[in-house]
């Protein structure tokens, strides 16, 4: 089964978006004390962008750790990123970074917890996207 993997900090913005999608999803653990997430199926990754500035750290470190695992990385098929246009050119840049690093398409960007329209678009596109993926993936 294809699936969705996401990260959300304690602010729960990204989790709220994922909940509204109503697609089965695995959450990347927040704390090192929680068990590491190993995925076995192809997935789309949904991540928040940590806010702006020149300090790096746009991709949450838990997500970096998750993708550093080669098996996890080999199964990513696309990325959806959240952010805030207030961060200017760093808006949703976590999506750009992960798409470039993992060579997968950057599928969608939304702000904060996403609007009804954002949820609709992703839900409508979800089935089409997976159909187009190679069946052996």
């Amino acid at each position, binding site marked *: 089964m294809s699936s969705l993997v996401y990260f959300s*900090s*304690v*602010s*729960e*913005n990204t989790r*709220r978006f994922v909940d509204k999608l109503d697609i089965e999803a695995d959450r990347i653990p927040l704390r090192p004390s929680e068990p590491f997430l190993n995925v076995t199926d192809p997935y789309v990754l949904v991540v928040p962008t*940590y*806010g*702006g*500035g*020149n*300090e*790096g*750290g746009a*991709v949450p*470190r838990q997500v*970096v*750790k998750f*993708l*550093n695992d*080669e098996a996890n*990385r080999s199964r990513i098929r*696309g*990325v959806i*990123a959240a952010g*805030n*246009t*207030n*961060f*200017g*050119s760093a*808006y*949703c*840049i976590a*999506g*750009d*970074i*992960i*798409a*470039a*690093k993992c*060579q*997968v*398409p*950057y*599928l*969608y*960007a939304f*702000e*904060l*917890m996403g*609007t*009804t*329209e954002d949820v609709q*678009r992703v839900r*409508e*596109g*979800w089935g*089409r*996207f997976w159909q187009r993926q190679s069946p052996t993936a």
Partner: protein
Amino acid sequence: MAEKLKLIDRVQAINWNRLEDDKDLEVWDRLTGNFWLPEKVPLSNDIQSWATLTDVEKQMTTRVFTGLTLLDTIQGTVGAVSLIPDALTPHEEAVYTNIAFMESVHARSYSSIFSTLISTREIDEAFRWSEENPALQKKAEIVLNYYRGDDPLKRKVASTMLESFLFYSGFYAPMYWSSRAKLTNTADLIRLIIRDEAVHGYYIGYKFQKGLEKLSAAQRQELKDYTFELLFELYDNEVEYTQDLYDPLGLTEDVKKFLRYNANKALMNLGYEALFPRDETDVNPAILSALSPNADENHDFFSGSGSSYVIGKAVNTEDEDWDF
């Protein structure tokens, strides 16, 4: 300032090595990492550009900045400080002191813009206008009343509204000029302020949600109703303020879209769903792109033809954590 200042009862030495809420350190690091001062921005490069504006345009812009100065002054000297006694952790208190200081930096920045571009007489006139404009004064009064009130969560709602919504009738103007390649250095400075306000609104809104967790369902509902009532009250007032500022230039309808777009974001920062539908929040693309140059990039593989999509462009990640 007749009222007695409320202070926290007990202070313990703050230990950043023992966190109760990781978000406090994360936001502290982000805020200190984003620290800036107006002296870093070459505002004087805008002098020639300023000279190309008409009198009406100059007047609007000057009034916008005095209004923003008032809001930042409130947030620096009253708003962020009033949140300290309600803090759940000592680290949260420290974050508010950072927020308060940066708001004072913002307020100071507008004076840098003024002294660079505008004559003393024009500055004084604009400050006088801001003291007499009913919509601006009402906006200040509504927020100040909540800061003086005795409900910690309502204070956070008002504060998030200020950080994430009430500034934007003003922020529109420098984005408008930037989209027309005018006052671009001033716009760069305002973008630094906009970036800060995003972190402030996010954090205060997050702490509001932490506070909600401790309440009954009925109390949560009451605060939700209160939040939306306040939003409508502030929105109606913002519309009036926007008309006062932008009617002479015919920009009011365009600004109102930007207001509603940001009102939605304020609600989301508080954990509520967006209120205004897409067709009322479709911000002028030129304004959106002045705010965030990559906001209009096509990251919407899911809609339209969907035949092509972007594989990420090269980005300088700089993070050393990556193993591949």
